[in-house]
């Protein structure tokens, strides 16, 4: 018997070694702080679950949970109502500017929540003489639709575009009218994408923080906002921790559903397949395209215009005054630094956070794709930070690292760490599909041509992944520079980031503060918008979809 040894040569030690990076990072900066929060909140009582039980029984909790879930469902339904027709039109018709339009829908999605909050403060202020939606649930719903429409357009549109039209035509020749054919043939095939998009939108709106903090009010707060309120205003860590657990449970349940719907989705090839889009001909097509463009412009364009208009409005006229005040201290504006310094802080912190997120996310994605139990565990563990309240994370980091290397001068490191935690799932979600889609045979071809395993990675995986890596870096940057929920806790008061500065300015009276908030929001929107449009140019495959 001369059976050869395993010729696949996958040394056991390597995935473990690589897994050490994300494991250590998540363990130290995610699990440990989480343990601290839960310990502080739940560990003080004789019976550990008593706070949870108390909070769960509290009618106020029921009200918050009901509002949180209710607005999330309403937001999801509204987002689908706007997103599906747009997705259909973008998938079915080919017209000038379609790609630009599609890229533009992505911009609101990555806009920081505080910017969305500012935009709607500006918009609702402008609308107030006609219809006053300030302090209503509608304000929250509209803001949620604004920045989640792209999830539906991208996820559903992506599938729709590649749907073979033949079955639809077959249904038509068999006697089904257009609507009937859509319902019987197209809709069922779109369902996995619709389910996935709904789950994502629900998740995002269920955990909504910045938007609700700014646009909500008494009786209109999500669990996430309540966690913040319990901590920052009431110093009631017991309730905060209990609510965090509640939120985590809800999110894990949603993620489970999301995962199931994702698994039903057919794997899509990396290569762009032919689309079924056709040119716009005829009145109905023109109406459809025109309607979709108008709908998008209303839902996504108008709030941004309102933001820009408010930032430029000075008294009864227009000007750049609000932007000019960013560079100098004023009596009315309460911040320990001039806002321009917050911009510099944010850029530096987001850069570091992006590097961190890339390092952790890449090693995690490579581990996950290497398969085996380690890989599967990694895949699941990486989604955890996404499911954990950013507010809880920030609070945990604050509690866990008040002493030691991250105290004092070192505390400045906690901000990029917190932001990287939020960005890592995005990096992994961007890299993983690309890594998975690399044809195994490409690696085999390289190996038979004489490339040892390490060389195979460098010659095949790396070049293909590096484009996705650029995309991941861009997304990370956009996500981290706009991160608010965790940053608000971790950022030193003397070193605010742009979102923190915006939130502070929005909470203070006076035209100067409002103007500054708007000007900073415009700046932040421009930064993230530019990054996202750049990403879209190098987008590969289904990168950037969720």
């Amino acid at each position, binding site marked *: 018997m001369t059976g*050869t040894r*395993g010729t696949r*040569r996958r040394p056991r030690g390597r995935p473990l070694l690589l897994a050490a990076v994300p494991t250590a990072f998540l363990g130290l900066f995610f699990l440990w702080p989480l343990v601290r929060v839960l310990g502080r909140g739940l560990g003080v009582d004789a019976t550990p679950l008593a706070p949870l039980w108390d909070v769960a029984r509290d009618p106020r909790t029921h009200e918050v949970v009901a509002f949180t879930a209710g607005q999330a469902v309403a937001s999801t339904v509204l987002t689908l109502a706007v997103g599906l027709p747009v997705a259909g039109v973008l998938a079915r018709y080919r017209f000038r500017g379609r790609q630009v339009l599609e890229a533009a829908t992505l911009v609101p999605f990555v806009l920081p929540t505080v910017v969305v909050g500012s935009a709607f403060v500006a918009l609702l202020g402008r609308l107030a003489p006609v219809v006053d939606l300030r302090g209503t649930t509608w304000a929250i719903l509209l803001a949620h639709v604004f920045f989640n429409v792209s999830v539906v357009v991208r996820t559903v549109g992506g599938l729709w575009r590649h749907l073979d039209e033949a079955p639809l035509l077959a249904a038509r020749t068999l006697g089904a009218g257009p609507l009937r054919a859509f319902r019987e043939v197209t809709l069922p095939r779109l369902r996995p994408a619709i389910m996935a998009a709904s789950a994502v939108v629900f998740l995002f709106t269920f955990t909504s923080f910045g938007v609700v903090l700014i646009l909500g009010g008494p009786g209109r707060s999500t669990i996430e906002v309540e966690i913040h309120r319990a901590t920052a205003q009431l110093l009631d860590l017991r309730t905060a921790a209990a609510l965090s657990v509640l939120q985590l449970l809800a999110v894990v349940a949603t993620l489970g559903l999301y995962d199931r719907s994702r698994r039903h989705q057919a794997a899509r090839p990396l290569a762009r397949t032919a689309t079924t889009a056709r040119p716009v001909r005829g009145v109905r097509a023109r109406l459809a395209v025109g309607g979709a463009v108008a709908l998008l412009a209303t839902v996504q364009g108008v709030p941004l215009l309102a933001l820009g208009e408010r930032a430029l409005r000075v008294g009864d006229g227009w000007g750049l005054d609000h932007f000019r005040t960013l560079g100098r201290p004023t009596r009315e504006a309460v911040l320990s630094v001039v806002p321009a310094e917050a911009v510099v802080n944010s850029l530096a912190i987001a850069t570091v956070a992006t590097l961190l997120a890339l390092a952790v996310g890449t090693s995690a994605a490579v581990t996950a794709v290497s398969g085996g139990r380690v890989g599967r565990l990694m895949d699941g563990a990486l989604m955890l930070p996404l499911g954990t309240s950013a507010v809880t994370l920030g609070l945990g980091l604050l509690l866990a690292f008040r002493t030691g290397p991250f105290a004092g001068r070192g505390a400045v490191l906690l901000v990029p760490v917190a932001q990287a935690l939020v960005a890592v799932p995005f990096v992994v979600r961007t890299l993983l599909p690309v890594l998975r889609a690399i044809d195994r045979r490409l690696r085999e*071809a390289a190996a038979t041509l004489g490339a040892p395993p390490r060389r195979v990675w460098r010659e095949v995986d790396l070049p293909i992944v590096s484009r996705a890596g650029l995309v991941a870096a861009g997304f990370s940057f956009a996500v981290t520079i706009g991160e608010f929920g965790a940053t608000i806790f971790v950022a030193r008061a003397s070193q605010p980031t742009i979102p923190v500065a915006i939130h502070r300015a929005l909470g203070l009276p006076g035209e100067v503060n409002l103007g500054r908030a708007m000007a900073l929001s415009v700046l932040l929107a421009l930064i993230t918008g530019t990054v996202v449009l750049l990403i879209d140019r190098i987008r590969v495959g289904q990168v950037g979809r969720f």
Partner: protein
Amino acid sequence: MGALTVEGLRAGYGAGPDVLHDVTLDVRPGEVVALLGASGSGKSTLLRCVAGLEPLRAGRILLGGADAAALPVERRDVGLVFQDHALFPHRDVAGNVAFGPRMQGLAPADIDARVDHALRRVGLAALADRPVDALSGGEQQRVALARALAARPRLLLLDEPYGSLDRPLREGLASALPALVRDEGVGALLVTHDQQEALRAADRIAVLAGGTVRQFDVPERLWRDPADATVATFLGVGPLFPATVTDGTAHTAVGTFPVATAADGPARLLVPTAALHVDPHPDGPRLDATVVDVRFAGDAHRLEVRSGEHTFAVRTTTADALPAPGGTVTLGVDPRALRVLPADDGPRAGSQTGQRAEPRAGQ
């Protein structure tokens, strides 16, 4: 010394059953060996074992006479060409072809020379700078071949290389393979399920069924003396009739035929279609058949006929006396071409004996 020798190879996936049992074959330098089998017969597994991509359970693989067991994939000197080409999407044509020479650490000038030579061999020198996704399927296949050749392997492994191409292209590329292999002095193992492709490209053909080599020989011998009913059926040599042999005569439902050397007992009679001709009054044995269809086939007519439970095609050039569909036709049989095969040679037969089926002697 052979380019490749496989001895008693046994392989399978994971904890699953054996996909290959006791496979033995060899490839000589400059020779194309076709591995012919239906899908699921294990031919791609064999190829992957040779390339070092799958572990062996038993047996040996010798490359250039040396045991390959200790050699990892990248040091086996084999050029693997995949069905869907597996070109590197992030490199242009020249970049793909240069990959192997680069891995060997050649000087840039030598790499260029290798690339140039390989692309010329496949007739794509003009497309060197093209991105690979701008190429047609046939061009991609030739790039994949050039890429494999440029690494100067001692053995080419071609896994259904023409499977995704149109028939004319497939035939052209398959026909060009023997000369290429001869000129480059490499051995080639060609996996295919298409008899015509195997015939065009191969010097020798190994018929693989049920995870074992049923017969391994030059094409003429395979068609003339198929080892068993499975091989005969897969090659499409002709109809097989259940028969009983007594004293050199095979008795079947469609007539009796002289079979000189066959042993008495139950058997199956193979009537190669090449041994049939339309003849109302044959001198020797005859076979009566019902005409199902008549088609003009360019240089001859093709009759679709039924005899017993078998439907098969017969060519005839006697255009003046064509039978009509539904009528009967008498076919003359060349008795020298008749073969008697075992009555039963199910898939397990080969594996149970563990022996290569030997070609039977003719009459």
